[in-house]
C-alpha cells in the first residue's frame, strides 16, 4: 500500500500500521474498546499478502506468552488489549523485559479498577511506567494523541524495540482508539527476510550455526552476582533511553504564565482549553508528553522554571502528576485535574480547573 489519505479509527490505524510496518505476528484476545485492532487484522487477512500471522488466543495470558515465544526468535511480534487484559499480561511483560525481547504491546485504556467500564480512561499510568510486573524493568512507553500517531508510533516502536532489545508499550485510550481522523498511510515495509532477521536479531533463537554458542532466551539467573550485573546492564539501557529517546511537544510554552501537562486524549482536550484560555487573555501553554518512559524530566523542568503554575490533566485520580512533581522538584505550584471511570473531561472543565486550582 502506497501513501494514501484515509479516514479511520485509531484502533484500525494500529492494525494497518502493524501490517504496513512488516510485523510478523499478532496474538490477541478481544476486549472493548480495542476490538477493532484484531477485527481489522482479520478483515485484511495479511497472512495472504505479507505472510503475517494473526491469531486469536484463548486468553490474554496466552497472547503475551505467544508473543514471548514468537519474539524470542527475533520476529516482530505484537499484541494489544485494554486495561483488564493488560493486567493479565503483566507477568509476561516482566519476563519479556527480563529476557530482553523486543515486542510491541498496545493498551487502549478503559476505566478501572477491576473490569471497570468500557469507556476511555488513563488510569494505567503507574502500571505502565512504574512496573506493572515485578522487578526493576521499564517499558519504552509511547502515548499517541491522534490517529496519525497511533499509526506512526507502531513504526517507531519497532525501531526502538530492536535498537534496545526491549518491549515497547503504546499507551492509548478508548477515545483515541474509537475516534476517526484523517490519516496518511505509509509505503509498506516488507517483512524481514530470514537473513535480515538473523542480522537484526543475532541474539534470537532461530537455530544454532556452528560458528557461535547457543543463544539462550531466559529471564532466570540463579547466580545473584550475575543477576546484579544484568540488572546494571538493564539500567544502563534505560539511562540511554532517558538520554536519547525522550519525546514531547511544547505548544505556546515560550511566553506561558501557566502550563498544562497532559498526554494522549487529555492533551487534545487540554489543547482546546489552552486556546480558550488564550482567547480570555490568559497565557497558557501545553506540555504534551509523547514518551511516558523515558519521562521528559529535564525539558519539563526547564519550562517549569518560567511559569507560575502547572495543571496536570489525566483521566485518573492523579498518577502522572507524581513524575511532574519529581521533574520540577515541586518548585512550582502543581495540581491535578481528572475525571474517572470513563468520564472524559470537557475543555471547559479543564479551563475551570486551571482557573480555580492554579490561577486563583
Amino acid at each position, binding site marked *: 500500500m502506497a501513501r494514501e*489519505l*484515509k*479516514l479511520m479509527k485509531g484502533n484500525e490505524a494500529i492494525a494497518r500500521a502493524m501490517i504496513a510496518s512488516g510485523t510478523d505476528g499478532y496474538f490477541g484476545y478481544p476486549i*472493548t*474498546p480495542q476490538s477493532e485492532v484484531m477485527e481489522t487484522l482479520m478483515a485484511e487477512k495479511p497472512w495472504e499478502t505479507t505472510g503475517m500471522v494473526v491469531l486469536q488466543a484463548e486468553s490474554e495470558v496466552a497472547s503475551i506468552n505467544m508473543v514471548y515465544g514468537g519474539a524470542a526468535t527475533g520476529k516482530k511480534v505484537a499484541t494489544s488489549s485494554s486495561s483488564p487484559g493488560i493486567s493479565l499480561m503483566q507477568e509476561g511483560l516482566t519476563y519479556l523485559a527480563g529476557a530482553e525481547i523486543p515486542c510491541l504491546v498496545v493498551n487502549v485504556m478503559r476505566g478501572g479498577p477491576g473490569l471497570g*467500564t*468500557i*469507556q476511555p480512561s488513563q488510569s494505567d499510568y503507574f502500571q505502565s511506567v512504574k512496573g506493572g510486573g515485578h522487578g526493576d524493568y521499564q517499558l519504552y512507553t509511547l502515548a499517541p494523541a491522534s490517529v496519525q500517531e497511533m499509526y506512526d508510533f507502531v513504526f517507531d516502536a519497532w525501531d526502538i524495540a530492536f535498537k534496545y532489545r526491549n518491549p515497547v508499550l503504546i499507551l492509548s485510550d*478508548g*477515545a483515541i482508539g*474509537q*475516534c*476517526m*481522523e*484523517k490519516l496518511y498511510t505509509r509505503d509498506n515495509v516488507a517483512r524481514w527476510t530470514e537473513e535480515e532477521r538473523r542480522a537484526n536479531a543475532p541474539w534470537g533463537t532461530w537455530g544454532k550455526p556452528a560458528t557461535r554458542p547457543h543463544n539462550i532466551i531466559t529471564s532466570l539467573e540463579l547466580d545473584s552476582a550475575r543477576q546484579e550485573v544484568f540488572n546494571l546492564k538493564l539500567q544502563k539501557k534505560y539511562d540511554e533511553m532517558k538520554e536519547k529517546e525522550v519525546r514531547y511537544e511544547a505548544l505556546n510554552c515560550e511566553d506561558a504564565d501557566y502550563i498544562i501537562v497532559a498526554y494522549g*486524549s487529555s492533551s*487534545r*482536550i487540554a*489543547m*482546546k*482549553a*489552552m*486556546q480558550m484560555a488564550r482567547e480570555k487573555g490568559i497565557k497558557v501553554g501545553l506540555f504534551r508528553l509523547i514518551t511516558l518512559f523515558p519521562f521528559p524530566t529535564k525539558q519539563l523542568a526547564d519550562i517549569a522554571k518560567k511559569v507560575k503554575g502547572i495543571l496536570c490533566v489525566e483521566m485518573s485520580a492523579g498518577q502522572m502528576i507524581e513524575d511532574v512533581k519529581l521533574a520540577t522538584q515541586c518548585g512550582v505550584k502543581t495540581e491535578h485535574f481528572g475525571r474517572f471511570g*470513563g468520564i*472524559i473531561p*470537557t*475543555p*471547559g472543565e479543564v479551563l475551570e480547573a486551571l482557573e480555580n486550582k492554579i490561577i486563583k
Partner: protein
Amino acid sequence: MTEEIIIAGFGGQGVLSMGKILAYSGVMQDKEVSWMPSYGPEMRGGTANVSVIISDERISSPIINQFDTAIILNQQSLDKFEASVKPGGLLIYDPNGITHEPTRKDINIYKIAATAKAQELGISKVFNMVVLGGFLKLKPIVDKQYIHEGLEHSLPQRHWNLIPQNEEAIEIGKGLIECVQKL
C-alpha cells in the same frame, strides 16, 4: 472555518454513518476532520451520537460539549443536546416522534421531516442522507463533488451502485428543510 457538529438519534438511524460520510467528504476536500462516537452499551438499540468536527486548522479536542450545529433525530437527543448548541448556533431536528419542541430563543432552529418523506418515497435506507442534505443546504461546508468522493470512500465497493440514490436523497433533503426560527 471550524464547524463542530453533534448528530444524535436512535441506533440504526444511520447517525454514525451520516457522520462518517460528512467527515470523509471533509477529508476529500483536504479539511481537518474528527469523528468521535459515543460507544458502549448505550448503543445497542438505544441512543447513538457522534461528534464531527470539520476545520481548516489542526483540531484540538475531538471531544467537545458545545456545538455549532446539533442534528437531532429523537426526543431523548433533543432533551440532551438542545442546551449544548452555542448561542447563535443551529439546531436541526426531525419532528418524527417529537413531543416537546425546542424552546431556545438564542439559536437558529430548522426542522426536516425526513422520516416521513423517506417513508413516503420508500427510501428509508437513505433517510440519513435526506437529513444530511438539509444540513448541507444551510451550511455548505463541503462541496458536492467531495460528498460523492466521501460516499465512495465510506461505502464498500459492492454498494457503490447505491451512491446515486444517496445523492438524490441529499438533494431531496435540501428541498425539504424548513425554517422554524431564524435569528
